[in-house]
């Protein structure tokens, strides 16, 4: 019987500039320090059996990312969270943990959608909000939202042959992947829920750039993107990944 625990974590502040592999290394060391009874692989270079739901891009903040870890003994979830939080450093913390049911999918395979907030730079809050609202409304009325330029496609089909079967990126319609798109009612913050499955995976930065193209009166920039939550699907509903562990 394997014991897998799912941890929900957050990161904010300067540590957001870590890449995904560095986060992985960070967590491996943290688990080591915490004394949690992690399970190890056999061989000369034993390592923990750890996996992440969704790689965190450089600079992205999160309030709801997930990491699965195999253990050798059953330990109450709160104790595990506490043990890890005791050895964390600035800007990374555990927000919750849950034992996974025996046959649960791993975190990465469970990902179906995610919520994001994009904080638009600027001081004139009301003006910015107005601009954003207009752009959001216009954009959501469009039936097709193409990402990537069609001309590029033409030139890349030549490379395509040269590179021997390696598929070049085609312009794709991401409209079906935008489940919701709104503007916060106080701050110049864009909120969205995006599909993150294997069939269609939409990145918040792409949505932002499409939105920015539709803002004509100004150039807008955003230096903070926050992942708020990652969802899996259960009976046609989106449920936070931690819940998939808790009561399934």
């Amino acid at each position, binding site marked *: 019987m394997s014991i897998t625990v799912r941890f929900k974590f957050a990161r904010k502040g300067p*540590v957001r*500039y*870590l*890449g995904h592999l560095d986060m992985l290394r960070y967590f491996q*060391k943290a*688990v080591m*320090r915490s004394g949690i009874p992690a399970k190890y692989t056999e061989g*000369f270079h034993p390592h923990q059996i750890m996996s992440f739901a969704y790689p965190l891009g450089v600079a992205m903040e999160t309030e709801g990312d997930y990491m699965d870890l195999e253990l050798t003994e059953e330990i109450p979830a709160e104790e595990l969270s506490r043990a890890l939080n005791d050895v964390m*450093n600035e800007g990374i913390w555990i927000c919750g943990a849950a034992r996974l049911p025996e046959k649960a999918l791993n975190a990465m395979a469970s990902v179906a959608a995610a919520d994001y907030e994009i904080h638009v730079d600027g001081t004139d809050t009301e003006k910015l909000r107005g601009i954003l609202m207009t752009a959001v409304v216009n954009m959501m009325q469009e039936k097709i939202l193409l990402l990537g330029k069609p001309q590029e496609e033409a030139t890349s089909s030549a490379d395509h042959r040269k590179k021997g079967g390696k598929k070049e990126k085609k312009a794709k319609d991401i409209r079906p992947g935008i489940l919701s798109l709104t503007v916060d009612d106080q701050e110049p913050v864009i909120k969205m829920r995006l599909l993150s499955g294997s069939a269609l995976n939409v990145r918040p930065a792409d949505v932002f750039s499409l939105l920015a193209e539709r803002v004509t009166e100004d150039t807008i920039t955003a230096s903070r993107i926050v992942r708020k939550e990652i969802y899996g699907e259960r009976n046609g509903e989106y449920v936070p990944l931690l819940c998939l562990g808790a009561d399934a």
Partner: protein
Amino acid sequence: MDFSERKLALSHEILMQVEKPSQYTGGELNSVMKKADQVKVRFAMCFPDIYEIGMSHLGMQILYGLMNTYEDVWCERVFSPWKDLDAIMRRDHIPLFALESQDPVKGFDFLGMTLQYEMCYANILQVLDLAGIAFHAEDREEDDPIVIGGGPCVYNTEPIAEFFDMFYIGEGEVMYRRLFDLYEECKEKGISRHDFLRRAAQIEGIYVPSLYDVEYKEDGTLKSMLPKYDDIPVKVRKVLVQDMDGSFYPEKPVVPFIRAAQDRAVLEVQRGCIRGCRFCQAGQIYKPVRERSVDTLMKHAEAILQNTGYEEISLSSLSTSDHSGLKQLLEELIGECNRRKINISLPSLRIDAFSLDVMNKVQDVKKNSLTFAPEAGSQRMRNVINKGLTQDDILNGATLAFKGGWNKVKLYFMLGLPFEQEEDVRAIAELCNEIAKVYYETVPKDQRNGRVQITASSSFFVPKPFTAFQWAPMDTMEHFLDKASLCKRSVREQLNQKSITYHYHEAGTTIIEGIFARGDRRVAAAIEWAYRDGALFDAWTEQFSYERWIKAFEECGVDYENYIFRERGEDELFPWDYVDCGVRKEWLLNEWRRARAEVTTSNCRDKCSGCGCASYQCGICVKKR
């Protein structure tokens, strides 16, 4: 304290444009935050190379940890920004900052630089330049940081002397407290920079270059180097830790987020080396050998693993095989590491039954290679350089290893050693061939895991101060390359040539390193010229330009050949003779003569050869043999 809102010196836009942005944002585990207004001394400790190299330096972790135990001192870290950020900082006028507070270095009390390797000299100027500090100590303002250098390159400070206010000769653990006390006293009393430096020069181990007058003879050699004042010492004596068990060791080292060159816990088992190989500077300047006890080492190991979460630990020292408690240490450490699921990365141990047994326990024989460093191919040359490793040692070691399942061997050699003949170069190829032969003789055909793989590499020899070869001429570029191609040809002539791969290092870097190693104050102008012409990160082969450096010497009228290509006279005064590192010049001269006569000298464990370090009254010099 909540660090997550810690301010950053670089904007989001800039961080997104540079490689590995988190090398500039600090905040790593075990990094130390203090309140700037609650300390009296702010120290910026700089490793003038990129973060991944600098964060692998144990010496910096030691000094960082030690200084931060002082309540009145805050030590922070600084590294060379990589070229992408360097360009942005110049364009946007962003001053160089320390990682912890992200404050500009210019506002600090001290800027310390560790000088590990000569090819970082251009980076020293980059650091000063980006920090907005004048290159020349004499041009600095009253409240600029005191720029202080330390590390192995201080055993010839002269080519970079003008760029530093002071150097610290020896091990940082010893004198820092006294230096800070003096600094605080001077600051309180409003004593000037100049007078502080003059007082500091009276602390043992501290050298203030501006307080010495230097004169040269007509032939370009040094005539005299004398203190300007009576209270300044003629010779600066190296300071060192006498009791390694009692000295500070960083049990909470800073753990980088990004992968550093050494991504593991480091246990320094001893300092110094008992073997006086005649080409080796480290062997002399870290003398005498001082061990840490197994108990102390185990205590440090457990604490470090607990405090860092590293998954690997390695033993570090110049010659770990010589530690008298190695057997016990490895036994205990392997036990502890198995319990914690931690890998042990072994340094290159001398190959014998014991080390093979240990390696067998901790690594995958099939994947790992054995390392030998005979440094020279022939026994005659090994006698010249006093390398106490015989052909039998190597072949016996290889036999044992091949029986144990290894089939990869790495060998390190040097070309251009003093008194080297063609047959010595050929002997390198022959030795490789012998090893291959041993493999085919010991391992029956059906048990072979393919061909034996022998990788030989050679670097070119650079004579260094405080070695027996400080008098020796260096080979020219043509000689180096001739020898390398002779070696290559000889390898091709061997019966087992298909099992042997041979590489040689870049020769251009070697020549420049040679000039810095034994140059004098006149070299500084060329360093400045080359830096202004774009020299930076010269330790990185693809960044290094030989032509630029040669042009720099020519433009600045530096007779660089005079530093490297001539044999130096026995009574010549050297630019580094003002340093007393314990090893006497007469002893080194005697070693130089013995090298010529191909006579070896015993190592410190077998028999003291009276080098002079016994005056420190510690370590092996006072141990009963």
